[in-house]
Every structure is written in C-alpha cells, then in structure tokens.
C-alpha cells in the first residue's frame, strides 16, 4: 500500500504577511498505519489534510508518495488522480442520491461493470453495518448511519490512503465510542493507511499507531501514543496530552535526577536531567501520578483546598508550602476532605522535566 513523505510543507492563507496555517511540516506517514494529527482548534489540522488531498497548493515543501511528487508549489496533482478517500466532518453525503448511489459513485467513475460494482457496494455496506439501507435517502438516516455511508463511499474504491477530518465529533458520546472501535477495526481489516484528524487526545491515544501533535501550524512531536503521552517533547505537548501541573524545582544532582521543590521537599530518581546543578527547571506532574498519604514528615507537605467528585475519580486541588497549586486524582472513596493536611508522593516514571531555556525533555 501507500505511504507519504511530507517535507517542509507550508501553507499561508491570504498572502505572505499572514501567519502560516501550516509551517514547515515534516512528517512520514507509513503504509498501513493509523496516523493521527492532533492539536487544538485552529492549529492547522484541516489545512494539512486538505494539502494531502490536493485541494490546496502548498506555498513551500513537497508531498511525495514513493518517488512520485504529489504536491509542490506551482504543481499539484488534482484530487481525482490521487487514489485517496476523504471523510468530511459533516460527512458530505450527497442528499439527492440514495445510500447505494452514494457508495457506487466512485466505482462508476472508475467504469467498473455494473454487476461487479453492485457486489462490491453490497459487501461494503455489509462491512459498515448498513446492509438493507441501500435504497434510503440520506435525509432518512441518523448521523451515525450517514457517517458510515461516508466511510463506505470512501473505502469501496479501495483507496491507498483514507483521510478523516474529525469524523466522530458530531456524534453523541456513546455512538462516538462505538464508531471509534469500528474505525480501528476497519483500518485493521482493510489495511488502508488512515490519516485521522482530531482535537480529542483520548481519541488519538485510543486509535492511533502514531500521533503527530500540531500547534500553531508547527509539528511539535511525532510518536506512538505512549511516547507522546509519557515523554512529551515540550510543555505544549505535555499540556495538551492531559492535565498537567507545572511546579518549579532546583536541580540538586543532574545525573542522578534529584531536585528540590522551591517550597521545600525533595524528589529523586528522575534520571538524567539536561541541566546543571543549581539550575531551575519546571516539573510537569500528571494528576494520576500524585499519591496522598497522612503526614509523617518524610514526604512533601500540602493542603487540600478543593475537591471535585467526578464519579470514577475525585479531582483534588492541593496547595504546596509556597502556595503553588498541584492537582491529584484519587479514588473517590479515599478520604481527603477540604482543609486536610497531607503529604504527597510523586511517581517519577511519568514525570516531565522542562529546562528554562525553552527546550523540553523527558528524563
């Protein structure tokens, strides 16, 4: 199947003085992989996808498939010649065509014999659990069913790459969960390369072989879900991948990875830190890595200032000795009433350390 190599890709809307929507993007998309573009609203995800599809011309950079150049400034192979598929956020199911007519369209364009096309459409409708609904008009379908029509329509032509732009964000929470599972399953069974766009980090973690985190049009990090979550390349990625408390600390021993919090309290065993002794670094601490226990003088002292019940966990806001805030997630039945004095212990395996010169880094 097909992979893509994106190099130096840049796109500006409305002239050279405008800030770039996509800025110098380098990304290799391996064949048969499920790759997710993740980032906050306006970071350039849709723009990247539309560049890949060939709807937009880049201002700089190239997109290649093997040794074939798909896009470069001044020359873009038109979408109809790329053998890709695209599922739009609003599904873009043609309202004047039945489900069958929607799905068979790409095969008709490819001049497949009618009976063969019919057979493939039936098989595809079966795959997305829509068999029997071929005669319906899209207006008579639910949102989830329309979404599956859009999927079937793109997959039936056996594209090399399927581009999906936030395909489940219009569905309700339960259906979204189910469609995610089905998408992952479809990708495994068809072996098509998926390039998936979302702003939902949980979705990205659950689905992807590889996540590319974008921010402000720039690529921040590429890696497996675990890499991106556990070893965020910088503060932006760390922040985006989950709740994160930033706590400043002074380096005591860079090689052994020992630091002292500004308000008092030591943390050791972090591993090598790219800083010198005495430097101030920022610790990125995830709430699930903070444990509370009754004070015994050995841990880091803190006070519970707020507690929010979330059902499966309780979100606890803590104030450290110097007044800095830290969030922790504990079991909802664990005691830690507001006002309680506690000590905290931090699981250093997930800890991120950011030096003050801007460079990020995991231990």
């Amino acid at each position: 199947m097909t992979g893509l190599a994106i190099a130096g890709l840049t796109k500006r809307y409305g002239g050279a003085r405008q800030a770039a929507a996509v800025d110098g993007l380098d990304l290799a998309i391996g064949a048969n992989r499920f790759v997710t573009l993740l980032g906050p609203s306006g970071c350039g995800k849709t723009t990247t996808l539309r560049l890949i599809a060939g709807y937009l011309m880049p201002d700089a950079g190239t997109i290649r498939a093997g040794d074939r150049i798909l896009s470069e400034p001044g020359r873009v192979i038109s979408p109809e010649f790329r053998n890709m598929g695209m599922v739009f956020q609003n599904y873009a199911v043609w309202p004047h065509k039945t489900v069958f007519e929607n799905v068979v369209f790409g095969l008709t364009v490819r001049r497949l014999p009618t009976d063969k096309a019919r057979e493939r459409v039936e098989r595809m409708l079966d795959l997305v659990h829509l068999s029997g609904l071929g005669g319906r008009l899209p207006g008579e379908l639910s949102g989830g069913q329309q979404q599956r029509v859009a999927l079937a329509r793109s997959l039936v032509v056996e594209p090399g790459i399927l581009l999906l732009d936030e395909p489940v964000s219009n569905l309700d929470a339960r259906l979204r969960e189910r469609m995610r599972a089905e998408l992952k399953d479809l990708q495994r069974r068809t072996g098509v390369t998926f390039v998936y766009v979302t702003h939902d980090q949980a979705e990205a973690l659950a689905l992807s072989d590889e996540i590319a985190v974008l921010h402000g049009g720039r690529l921040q990090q590429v890696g497996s879900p675990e890499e991106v979550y556990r070893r965020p390349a910088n503060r932006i990625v760390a922040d985006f991948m989950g709740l994160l408390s930033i706590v400043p600390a002074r380096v005591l021993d860079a090689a052994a990875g020992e630091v002292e919090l500004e308000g008092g309290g030591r943390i050791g065993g972090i591993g090598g830190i790219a800083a010198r002794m005495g430097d101030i670094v920022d610790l990125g601490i995830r709430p699930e890595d903070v444990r509370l226990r009754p004070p015994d003088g050995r841990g880091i002292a803190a006070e519970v200032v707020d507690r929010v019940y979330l059902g499966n966990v309780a979100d606890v806001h803590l104030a450290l000795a110097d007044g800095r805030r830290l969030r922790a997630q504990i079991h909802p039945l664990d005691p830690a009433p507001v006002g309680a004095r506690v000590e905290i212990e931090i699981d250093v395996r997930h800890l991120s350390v950011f030096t003050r010169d801007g460079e990020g880094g995991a231990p």
Partner: protein
Amino acid sequence: METVHAAAGSRRCGAGRRIVTHAWLEVGVTGAAVAALVVLVVLPIASLLLGSLTASDGLGLEHFHRALSSSLYLRPLVNSLILGSWTGLVSLLIGLPIAWLVARTDIRAKGFIRFTATMGYLTPPFLTSIAFANLFGPNAGIVNVFVRDMLGLPWLAFDIFSMSGMVLVTTLHAFPFVYLLAVGALQSIDASLEESAQILGAGRLRTALTITLPLAAPAILGGTLIAFVSAIALFGSQAIIGLPARIFTLPTRIYALFQYPPQYGLASALSLILVTITVAALYLQRAYLARRAYVTLGGQGARAHLVPLGHWRWPAHGFVLLLFLVVVAMPFATLLAVSLSKPWGLAFWQHLTLANYRFVLFEYDVTRRAIANGLVLAALAATLAVLIGAIIARIVQRTDIPGRWVLDYVSLVPLGLPGIVMAVAVLQFWLATPFPLYGTLAILLLAYVARYVPLGVRAADVSLRQIDPSLEQSARTLGASWLVTMREIALPLMRPGLFAGWLLVFVPAIQELSASILLFSSGSITLAVAVFNLYESGLSEQACALAIVNMAIIGAAVAVAHWISRGGLADRMQAVPQ
C-alpha cells in the same frame, strides 16, 4: 398558562382584569387582520369566480365556453404562454451564468453584477418598453434609422414591435429572479459535497453535472418559473410593445374588454384562465421545487473553491458589461435623451430642450395630482400591507390557533394574481356593494394592499424567523402584558425587517400600472398611468420627461430609506423576494 392567569387573578383582582382586557386586545387585532384579508383577497376572488359563472340564465360556463372557442381569446392565451416560456428560457440563459460567475468564480465585478440585477428588477418594464420603442421602433427608432439610412444595412434593423421584442423587454425585468435563486443555491452548497466527488475520481465537469447541478436544480427551476409567471402577468410592456404589433395577450385582451361596453363576465373568465396558469406554476414552484431544495448549511460549511477565470475573464467581463448596457444604461440614457429632445430623432442632440420638463411639471395639470396620488397611495399601501403582513406572520408562526395555515396560504394567493386580474376582481366585488368606490383613490388602495400583502407577510416572516420566541416569552414571564411585549420587544426587533418590507412594497406600488390602468379616473390618476397615457397619446418626449421625474422620486425614496436604515437595507430586501 391558564392556571397561572387564574391564580394571579384570584390573588389580585386588578391584575386579573388587566390580563383579560389585553387578551381581548390580542383577539381584536388578530380578528381585524383576518377580516382585512377576507375583504381584500377572499371576497374579490369569490366575486370574480361568481362573475365568470354568471350566464344570461343563471349560473353556467357560457363565458368560459366563449373564451376557449373563439380565436379572439385563444390566440392571446397562446401568445401569453409563448411569451412566458421564451422569457423563462432566456432568463435562465442569462441568470444562471451570471449567478455562477458571482457564486463560483473569482470575477471581480460581483458588486456590479448585483447592481445590474437589482436595477433590472426595480425598473418598471413599461419604462424599459418606452425606451426600447424609441430605439428600435420599425420606422422612427433611431438605431433602426441609423443602420438603415446611415449604414445602408437594412437587414440589421430590429423591429421591437414583435414577439421577440416583447421577450427581450420582459426578460430584462425577469432574469433577476433566476439569478437571485440560483446564486443563493450555488452559494449554499457545501464545498465538501463537491470535493467528495472529486477525490473519488470525478473531474470538474462530471462533478458539476452529477453533484452541483442536481443540488441547485430545484432553485434554478423555481426561479425560471417565477420569471415565467411575472412575464405573463405584466401589463405595461405587453400593451406598449404588443398592441402596435397587434399581438394580443391575456392581460391586454382583458383590458380591451373594458373599453367599449365592458364585458365583465368574459373578462372574469379570461382572468380566471390567466390565474390558473400562474397559480399552477407558483404551486409547482412552492410545493414541489422548494421542498426538493436541499438546504445544505453545514456547520463547518466550507465555501466553495472559487474557479480562477484566467483569460476567460475577458469574455465574462464583456458579457456582464453588455448586460449592464442593455439592462441599465440603454433604457435610462434613452429616456433621458428623449426627454431632453425637441423632436426625438437621429439628430436629437442638436435641439436639446427643457421644454418637456416645463410642460410636465408646470403646464400639464395632471402631473401634480398624479404625483400626490402616487405618493399617498404607495405610502398607505406599504404601511397597510406591512401591518397586516406582520400580524398574519405572527399568527402563523407564534400561535397555535387551529387552521392558521389557511391564513398563510390565502395571504400568498395574490402572488399568482396578475395586477389586471386583481383589478377585475376588486371592481367586480365593490361594484356589487352599495359603497360608491368606483373612480376613487380608495378602490386603488384596496387593490394595491391586496396585491402587496404577500410581500408584507414575507418581510415579516423573514424578520420573525430571526427573532427567537424566547425573547418574547421571557418578557411575558416577567409579567409584561401582550401590549407591552409587542411595544417593547417584538416591534423594535422586527422594525428593520418591516422597514425593508415597507420599501419593498412602496417602490413597485409607486410605479403600479397593471391594476391602476383599469381602476383610475381623472381624479385618482397615478404617475405610472399618466406616463402611459402621455405615451399612448403620442407625446413620447413628454412621457419620457415624466418617466424621469418618476424615477427621480423613486430614487429619492430609496436613498432616504437607505440613509435611515444606515445601509443594512439591501441585504434584507434581497431575502424577501424568495
């Protein structure tokens, strides 16, 4: 709600009584609007029906039989259909390309195209007809004189007094309907629908034919049907262009039936035949096409990618410029030139004069009466149509009175009634009552309000839709009465929309000819009728001078309205005709 009122009433008698009073007010206002609709629309149409069925011996189909058996009346029917069909077709051929240019290409002249279409819609067709008659009249039309006598190319001459001439003049007024509906449809189609086809391997042409066109077709056909209907309903152009060519159409034939001893029965039968055609076409447009129109307002609705025209922009600009010349520049320049010439002719510029203006403004005693009548009638008609329209739109949208859809439907019926038919109906009805209305301004006003009530309803409907019902409900919840809610919340919010509606009635009302021509007397003559009469009596130069005065008044009214509303008017007015 009932229980809340009851509880409040038992606690405080005074408050309870007040609620009752205002409930009566609400019922009273509602009832008055319904009654107005009955008197203005339902009863005249009923008496039209009755009149057409009143034979020499009781009820019978005698008039219809005559109308459908004599070529005297069949020929006009066929001519009306030919005129409507050709106008619809040519309007499509003009309106669709410019709609595409505006909606889908990077052409720069978009504001210019919009302006041209708006002017085409606003310019009264009988004025365009007078202008073109002065250019392309077979003997004296100066373009014809020029190509025949100066160039010596008589085969280049074009006789405006022909079916093609009639189609040409009518199309200039009708193509904006196709343009407006098509541009709306093309702009609302979400780009992703087309991009989906493209990435599946369909090229531009295939995408246009299998996705874009089917999606926009209902709106485009709808616009074509409206062009068809408005073409066959126009009286002025059919009289000015058709009568010299001896091409009778249904409106001019109906008009002729009032000339000698008026033949009401036959006129009513012909009117009903005309109405059948227009109502059938409008019904098709509303019930079938409007419902098939897929409104695709996607949440993230991406705008369509604009097609770069490249070198094709030159022919495109040429086409747009030609359209502007024919629709705006030629009619207005001609009217102006004729009005300033001593005798109109090829060498008119050698004898420029203001005498025609002096005549119409100071010597012709009809003018002042006509201007006063026109202004008063148009202002009153606009106010009443918008007022009634606002109440009816409210009843339909904001109450659950059973059978309110009937109101909605009845209020739209006049759309299918050509002006001359409305005049016949109003005459039939009021002549049968003891009120001596014939020849008064009142009967003109009744016909105008009835004609333009649909525009009032549409304008109110559009602006009501943009106001969330919760805004009024929260006022009621806070204890405001119906009257206070109306005065403080509903009316201020609807005011800009209603104002646009008012203007939308005022402008056509001040140039109304089709109905006025049957209803006026020397005391109640209006501007449009005065221009028409001057032209018909051979005073072409003076007629053009009065036409220019007419246009100046309309221009001033629009400018004042535009100034009062600080610009937002054009958008609102665009929303109404659809």
